C-alpha cells in the first residue's frame, strides 16, 4: 500500500484521473471545478500525461467532445458544476443512451438564481433521470477511489458515471490521501476496448432516429443496462476492497444496528452529522446515520435493509424541488419505502443550500425534530430548514 500524502482534493482527483491514463480531457472553467482541470492541463503540458486536452468554448461542447472521443474508443474525462452541468443537459441523456463510458466529476454547486458559487446538490439533482450512474463522495480519499472505480464501472457497463464532490467543502480542502499503486491499478482497470466504435474499418451508425416503433424498446434496453450495472458496481467495490482494504457500499451506515431514529444525507455533510450522532449516543439516544454513496441506480434493497428498525427517518436534502412532495431525495425515499413493508415516519429537511453551514447543533436539532415526528405527524411534506425570519 502507498503512503498517505496531504493533497488538495481537486489536485488528488486530477492525479487519480491521470493515473487512469485518460486519452481525451475536455472541459470549460467553472468554479469550483477549476482546480481539477487546471491540474490536468498542467500534467498534459508537462508531458506527464499523454492525453489530448481540448479546451472548449462551453460545457455543452465539453461533453460533446467527450461523446465524440468516447464513441471513437478513447477514455475520456470532463468536469463541471452548476450552470455548466445545466448547459450540458441535453447531452447527458444522449451520452447514456449511446452507452458511452464517460467519467465526469461534478463539483456540486447551487444553481442560479440568484447566482451563487457555493455548495449544495441542486445542480446534480436536476439530472436524476439522465440515465447516468451517480456516485457521491464524502471525503477526499473516497473522491480519489471513486475515480478509479468510476472508470472500471463505466467501461464494464458501457454507461457514463458522474462522481459528485461537494464544491469547496470537499474540492478545496487538503486531506490525507492514499493513491493506489500504478501496477495495482493496471490490474483493477484494464485498457479500454470498445467493440462498437467509430472506425472506418468497421462502419457503424450511431445516433439513428428512434421512430415510435423502436423508441420504447431503446429506452427499455437502456433501463435494463442501468439496472444491470448494480451488480457490476458491487463487484467493482468488492474487488477494490480486496486490493486496497478500503470497503465501499451503496449505502453507508453509522450506528444503525439498534437505531430508532436516523438521518439520511448525501455527500460531505455526513461527517458533521456523525458528530451529532456521537453526541446524542453519549446521551443515550439510539440514533444513527445513513448515507447514499450510490444514487443511480437507486440502491433499493440496500436502503431498505440499512434502515433496520428505525421508527422515524429524517431525510436531509441539499436541493429544492419547488412545491413538490419533498426534496429530491425525500421524494425518492418515500417512494422506496412505499414499495417495502417498512413505514417509518419521514421528515424531510432541505438544508445547507448554497454553502449555508449545517453545524453539529443543526443536526442535533434535526434529530430532535425527527423524534417529535414519532409523536406527531409532520404538518408539511418538507421544510426548508434554518430560514432566517
Amino acid at each position, binding site marked *: 500500500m502507498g503512503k498517505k500524502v496531504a493533497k488538495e482534493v481537486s489536485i488528488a482527483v486530477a492525479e487519480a484521473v491521470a493515473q487512469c491514463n485518460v*486519452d*481525451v480531457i*475536455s472541459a470549460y472553467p467553472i468554479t469550483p471545478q477549476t482546480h481539477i482541470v487546471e491540474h490536468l492541463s498542467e500534467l498534459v503540458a508537462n508531458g506527464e500525461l*499523454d*492525453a*489530448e486536452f*481540448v*479546451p*472548449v*468554448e*462551453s460545457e*455543452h*461542447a*465539453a461533453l*460533446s*467532445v*467527450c*461523446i*465524440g*472521443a*468516447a*464513441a*471513437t*474508443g*478513447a477514455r*475520456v474525462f470532463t468536469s463541471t458544476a452548476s450552470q455548466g452541468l445545466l448547459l450540458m443537459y*441535453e*447531452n447527458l441523456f*444522449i451520452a447514456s443512451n*449511446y452507452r458511452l463510458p464517460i467519467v465526469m466529476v461534478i463539483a456540486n454547486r447551487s444553481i442560479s438564481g440568484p447566482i451563487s458559487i457555493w455548495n449544495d446538490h441542486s445542480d446534480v439533482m436536476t439530472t436524476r433521470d439522465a440515465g447516468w450512474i451517480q456516485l457521491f463522495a464524502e471525503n477526499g480519499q473516497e473522491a480519489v477511489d471513486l475515480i478509479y472505480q468510476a472508470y472500471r464501472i463505466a467501461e464494464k457497463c458501457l454507461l457514463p458515471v458522474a462522481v459528485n464532490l461537494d464544491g469547496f467543502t470537499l474540492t478545496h480542502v487538503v486531506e490525507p490521501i492514499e493513491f493506489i499503486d500504478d501496477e495495482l491499478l493496471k490490474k483493477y482497470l484494464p485498457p479500454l476496448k470498445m467493440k462498437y466504435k*467509430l*472506425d*472506418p474499418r*468497421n*462502419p*457503424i*451508425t*450511431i*445516433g*439513428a*432516429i*428512434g*421512430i415510435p416503433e*423502436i423508441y420504447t424498446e*431503446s429506452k427499455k434496453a437502456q433501463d435494463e443496462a442501468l439496472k444491470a450495472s448494480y451488480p457490476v458496481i458491487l463487484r467493482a467495490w468488492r474487488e477494490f476492497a480486496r486490493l486496497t482494504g478500503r470497503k465501499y457500499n451503496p449505502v453507508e451506515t453509522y450506528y444503525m444496528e439498534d437505531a430508532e431514529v436516523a438521518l439520511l444525507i448525501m455527500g460531505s455533510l455526513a461527517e458533521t452529522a456523525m458528530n451529532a450522532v456521537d453526541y446524542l449516543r453519549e446521551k443515550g439516544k439510539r440514533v444513527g446515520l445513513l448515507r447514499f454513496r450510490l444514487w443511480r441506480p437507486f440502491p433499493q434493497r440496500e436502503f431498505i435493509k440499512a434502515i433496520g428498525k428505525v421508527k422515524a427517518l429524517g431525510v436531509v436534502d441539499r436541493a429544492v424541488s419547488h412545491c413538490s412532495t419533498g426534496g429530491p431525495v425525500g421524494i425518492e425515499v418515500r417512494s422506496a419505502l412505499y414499495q417495502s413493508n417498512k413505514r417509518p415516519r419521514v421528515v424531510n429537511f432541505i438544508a445547507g443550500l448554497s454553502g449555508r453551514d449545517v453545524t453539529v447543533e443543526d443536526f442535533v436539532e434535526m434529530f430532535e425534530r425527527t423524534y417529535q415526528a414519532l409523536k406527531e405527524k409532520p404538518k408539511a411534506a418538507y421544510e426548508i430548514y434554518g430560514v432566517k425570519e
Partner: protein
Amino acid sequence: MRKELKRFKGFTLKNMPREEFFAPGHRACQGCGTVLPVRLALKALGPDTIAVSATGCIEIISSPFPYTSWRVPWIHVAFENSASVASGIEAALKVLKRKGRFPKRKKVNIVVFAGDGATFDIGLQFLSGALERGHNLIYICLDNEAYMNTGVQRSAATPYGAHTTTSPAGKVIKGQVTWKKNLPAIVAAHNIPYVATANPAFYLDLMNKVKKASLIEGPCYIHVFSVCPTGWGCKPEDVIKVAKLAVETRVFPLYEVIDGKYILNRKVDKPKPVEEYLKLQRRFRHLTPEQIEYIQKRVNEEYEKLVKLCECFPAS
C-alpha cells in the same frame, strides 16, 4: 501555395470514383439538393472517413433505425454541437494513433454535415470554437436557407424577401426583412487554411474542393448551396437549373480562400438578372419590383466586394 496542394489532381469525368458511400433508399424529398452534395462529398472522401451530422434533414432522412444510408462510420448527437463532436473524434484519433491503439499511418477524414440552422444560428459558437482550436476536420454547411426539417422556418441564412413560415409574405411585412448572414466571411475571419463555397450544379468543382479540404491539415470549411424544392417552391426537376442560376446571377459566387488568399472560381462578367433566379421559386413570388431592384443592387454590391478581395489578396 500550400504544400499539401502542390501535387493536387482533381476529379474528372474519367477518374470519378464509382463507389458510393451514401446509399440509395433514403427518405429525402424528390429532387433534394442537399442529399446530392453529401453523396458527392463522400465520393470524394472515400471509405476512410468518419461523418458527423447535426440534427436536421440529412440526419432524419438517412437513419430511420434499423436502416442507414451511411456506408462510412457516422454519428449524430444533437443540433448545435457537431463541430464539437467532430473535435472529440479528431482528438481521440490523434491520441489513439500516438498510443498505438489505431494504425498510425491510416489517414482518416473527419467530416461534418450540418444545415444552415445548425451552422448560422444554433451551432455558430461550436463551429467557431472548433475552428479556433485548429482541429483537422472538414465542416460542410448544407445551406438550404431555412429550417426545412421543421417545416420551413426562417434562419439567419434565409435570403432577403423570402417567404418562410416565420417570415411570411404578409400584407405589411413581405417575407424575410434581413440580408443573409455572410457565413463564409465569418469563417474566413478565423484565419483557417481553407474556406470555399460550392454548388452541386458544379459537381466536379464541389468534389475537388472537398478533396482539397481532405488534403489540407487543419480546419476546412465548405459552404454548399443546397436547393430545397419543398421549401423554396421550385420544381424538383428544376433544382440544378436553380442552383446554376444562383451562380450565373452572382447570388451565390463560387470562390475559395486559401490561407487568406482569395480565388474567384467562376467570374460572372455578364450576369443574368436576379429576377430569372427568383421567378423559379414560389418563396419569392410576392416580391414587389422595388424589392427585386433592391436585391439586384445588393447582389451586385456583394459580388463587387468579393472581386475586390480577390484583387487585393490574390492567390499566387
